[in-house]
Every structure is written in structure tokens, then in C-alpha cells.
């Protein structure tokens, strides 16, 4: 252990601000990166699920239209 007390640890021999700034910014940037990557992953899956639902709806609508058209021609 290089430091006698917590206050000495925080002071970092007078350079506390610079050391903690570096560590703080690094942790912040990396945390943001991890969070954005996770949320991107989740969003992509949601997006795909949404598209699937839309496709099913479109297909049903097209089939309905086709059925109606063939009914019309029979009349």
C-alpha cells in the first residue's frame, strides 16, 4: 500500500485532480460505450420484431385484397 490514509489517497501527492479526472473520464466514456452498445443491440432486435409484425399485416392485407378481387370477378 502506497498511501497512509484515504485523504492521502485522494490527494495523490497533490496531483489528485489530474489523476481522478483521467480515471473519471475513462470510466465515463467506457460506461457510455457499453451502455450504447447494449441498447443498440436491444433496439436492433426490437426493430426486427416490429418489421416482422408489419410484414405479417401487409401480407394479410394483400391476401384479403386478392380474395376480394377474385370474389368480385365471380360476381
Amino acid at each position, binding site marked *: 500500500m502506497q498511501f497512509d490514509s484515504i485523504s492521502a489517497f485522494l490527494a495523490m501527492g497533490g496531483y489528485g485532480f489530474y489523476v481522478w479526472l483521467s480515471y473519471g473520464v475513462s470510466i465515463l466514456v467506457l460506461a457510455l460505450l457499453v451502455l450504447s452498445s447494449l441498447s443498440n443491440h436491444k433496439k436492433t432486435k426490437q426493430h426486427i420484431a416490429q418489421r416482422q409484425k408489419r410484414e405479417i399485416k*401487409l401480407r394479410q392485407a394483400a391476401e384479403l385484397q386478392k380474395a376480394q378481387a377474385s370474389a368480385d370477378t365471380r360476381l
Partner: protein
Amino acid sequence: MSNLNAKIEATSTNINPLLRACGLTCIREERVLFEALNFTIAAGDIVQIEGPNGAGKTSLLRILAGLSQPYDGNIYFQETPLAQQREAFHQELLYLGHLPGVKDEMTAQENLEFNLALHGLHTGSAEKTLSEVNLLGFEDAFASHLSAGQHRRISLARLWQSQAKIWILDEPFTAIDKLGVKKLEALFLQHADNGGCVVLTTHQDLSLPAERVKKVTLAYRFS
């Protein structure tokens, strides 16, 4: 998964096709336009690509011309993959897309001459060629003074001088009057009879004899 989204009504009897599409798959903006598409185009064929809007007709033509890469599959020109003989293939290719490729800063004649020169051709008489597309008297007019329809006709004029075997034409009849369409159709027939082939998309019905026109039908896919 249906691989039968394309059907060919007349199968070619020619053993040695000019162009062969093998397992073509095209994906645009996360949508499969067509999948595992197979067909052959032989000398003498006039092939019409059919299908609703968004079915991938233009994408198919661009892939055939070698402008776009398919997601999967290959195009063979005289049984060799396109990628291996780009220049030899382009020597035999005339592609006209949606955009006419006409520069506003050049005259109709200069545009025609440049486009032909790129393919190593000289216009015997630009005047005569331009008159085929109803542009007689516009030779010296700058393209900026001409209409969009006239731009299209300048680019179509190349057909009369072309020596390429394969014509790939995306909607060649837009902005062309009835007489012009007749003329073009006659030209297509003549080209096919001379051992060439024509691949085209069109919204209008072709008035060519049905037995001469092969059809490739693309269906609209939801996924």
C-alpha cells in the same frame, strides 16, 4: 422460403447462352427482392422483366449489367463469370438506365458522339441517327435547352449505332410517342434476328409477337 418467385415461360433451346443468371439473390435495405433466381438469355431473345413496383426490376437489370453486385449468386457471360472479364463483357453491352447520361453543357450531337466514342464507335452521321429519334434539327442544341424526354431520346439514339450484342434497357419507352415505340420495337426485333439479345422492363405492353418475347416475372415479396 419460396425459390419459385421467378418463372420463365419459354425456355431457350440454345445450348450456349449469352447470359446466364445462377442463383441470384438481391437484398436492398433489409428486404429480399428476389432469391435464387435462375434464367438464361440466348442470342435472339427478347426478355421482358415483369413485376409490380418495388419487386426489384431495376435492381435485376443493374446486376445483369454488372453495375451492382448480387448478395449471392453469379452472372455468366458466355459461361464465364462477369467479374473475370469485365472489359470483354462491357464491349458487348449497352445499358440504358433511368438516368440518360446526357450532359447539359454539351450539344445533342456531342453527347451522342461521346457516348459512342466511349465504346470505340464513330457516328457515321449524327444527323441521321438523331433523326431516328425525332431530334432532327436539334444537333447543335445544348442539352440544357432540351426536355427530359429529349434527353432520353439522345441516349436511345445510340441503339441505332450500337454493335453490342446485349442490350439492357430500363423503361426505354418512357417519353416516347407511339410511332417511336413502333420504331424501337422493330429495332429490337432486327437486333434479335441479327444474333443479339434485348433485356428490358416496361410498363406498356409490347406489341411484338408473343412467341418472340420471353418473360421473367418477379413477385413482390414482403420480407
